């Protein structure tokens, strides 16, 4: 019997939503880590019982949580579950140490909102990307932008300093949400190839496992930076890829939906007939690499859906020709946003699509977008949605 597990991060805790393959009856568990911001949770493709979570707080900083039983129990990964080694019988669990590798790349500065230079400061983990093959290996994209890696299940984290030390760092600058590394894509056909994206620096690719990186922003055009065609400085909101076509990438930029057929070396716009091409979330059908989903947002000044209608747009042609998907979604008086990591797809034959809103709804379409139903209505603002498919 197939099963799906939806991992939802919100402003005030995490929730786990489970259903069988029909996806019409749901069990809701949570809030986990109540009161904390859960920027992202993601399960290991190599072991679905292994889930990592980024728990963060403006007051108390960063905590990494880990589950080894599919989300039933959690612990900070410093100590195996149940083992008590600290004085007084407390779990050690020191898992929140993200320190930039100043020896690997000098701690330089980046551009601040006022145009001055500002030192790199760690703030939080935006995105966790478990290895495709090893449950103990996981990457973390952080603010201020850098990429960290753990090979011991989240206990110790080391920066891959080649990215921050790329040399264009002084030209990177924070978007409204901070200077975050929010997208990490591991290439299943080439273990040394990783794509990342940073707001607002752009997209980068490594072909040597993270030692060296190159900007892959050719073809992007951004009116809000002095040179609209610059090598870096673009506010890339999210990138998505179907694992079956690793070189084919789709990007939701600040404005513009973009496509690359050559692993990011060149991009061209595929916004086509979208009512607005501003947005955050983008994803690709699990079995159809040319079927793409976006949620158009009205504008950079008005972060809610266009015309008060919550519409997912689907292109079955790899972009340019888009159709609104509205069945089951509110079509009046709706003013929610869908954030960059808040859309996901399952891998069942009919490809379920999921997304969460800043209004606290999580929707599912069990039929690739043709119709939608809410799983939950009233969660805190949703920051991230991931789905695990157990066949």
């Amino acid at each position, binding site marked *: 019997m197939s099963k799906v597990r939806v991992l939802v991060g919100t402003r005030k805790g995490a929730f786990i939503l489970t259903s069988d393959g029909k996806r019409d009856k749901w069990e809701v568990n949570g809030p986990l880590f109540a*009161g*904390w911001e859960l920027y992202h949770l993601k399960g290991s493709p190599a072991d679905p019982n292994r889930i990592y979570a980024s728990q963060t*707080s*403006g*007051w*108390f*900083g*960063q*905590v990494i949580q880990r589950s080894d039983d599919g989300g039933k129990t959690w612990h*900070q990964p*410093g100590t195996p579950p149940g083992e008590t080694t*600290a*004085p*007084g019988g*407390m*779990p*050690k*669990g*020191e*898992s*929140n*140490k*993200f*320190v*930039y590798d100043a020896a690997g790349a000098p701690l330089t500065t980046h551009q601040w909102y006022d145009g001055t230079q500002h030192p790199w400061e*760690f703030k939080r983990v935006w995105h966790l990307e478990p290895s495709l093959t090893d449950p103990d290996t996981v990457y973390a994209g952080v603010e201020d932008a850098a990429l960290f890696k753990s090979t011991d299940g989240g206990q110790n984290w080391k920066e891959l300093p080649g990215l921050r030390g790329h040399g264009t760092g002084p030209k990177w600058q924070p978007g409204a949400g901070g200077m975050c590394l929010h997208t990490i894509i591991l290439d299943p056909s080439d273990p040394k190839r990783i794509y990342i994206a940073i707001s607002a620096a752009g997209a980068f690719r490594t072909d040597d496992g993270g030692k060296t990186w190159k900007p892959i922003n050719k073809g992007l055009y951004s009116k809000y930076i002095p040179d609209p065609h610059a090598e870096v400085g673009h506010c890339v909101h999210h990138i998505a890829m179907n694992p079956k076509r690793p070189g084919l990438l789709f990007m939701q930029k600040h404005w513009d939906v973009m496509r690359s057929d050559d692993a990011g070396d060149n991009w061209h716009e595929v916004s086509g007939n979208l009512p607005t091409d501003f947005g955050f979330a983008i994803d690709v059908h699990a079995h159809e690499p040319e079927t793409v989903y976006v949620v158009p947002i009205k504008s950079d000044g008005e972060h809610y859906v266009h015309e008060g209608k919550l519409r997912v747009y689907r292109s079955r042609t790899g972009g340019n020709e888009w159709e609104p998907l509205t069945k089951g979604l509110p079509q009046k008086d709706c003013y929610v946003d869908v954030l960059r990591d808040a859309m996901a797809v399952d891998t069942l034959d009919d490809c379920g699509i999921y997304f969460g809103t800043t209004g606290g709804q999580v929707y599912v379409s069990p039929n690739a977008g043709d119709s939608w139903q809410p799983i939950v209505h009233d969660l805190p603002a949703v920051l991230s949605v991931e789905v695990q498919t157990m066949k």
Partner: protein
Amino acid sequence: MAVMIRVELPQHLRTLAHVGQEVPIEVEGPVTQRSVLDALEERYPMLKGAIRDHGTRQRRAFLRFFACQEDLTHESPDAPLPDPVVSGKEPFLIIGAIAGG
């Protein structure tokens, strides 16, 4: 000489450390903010980084340190804490500053 200091934690740090509102902490030598926090983190390593930054060891911006109805947040981390804290009569309070919702 070691003394026992009472440290009161905000809710989220109690959850992280699996403790109640107040924890007793044994401190060797002079009782200061630094020595109390060092001893607290030694006893509860999961609080490392949650009160002071890992790299700089600076207090996290939205945390405050109170004792004896005084705000000691901006005192030197090496200044002696008040006698009632040293004697255990009063707790050393770690407070999440009021901000946001």
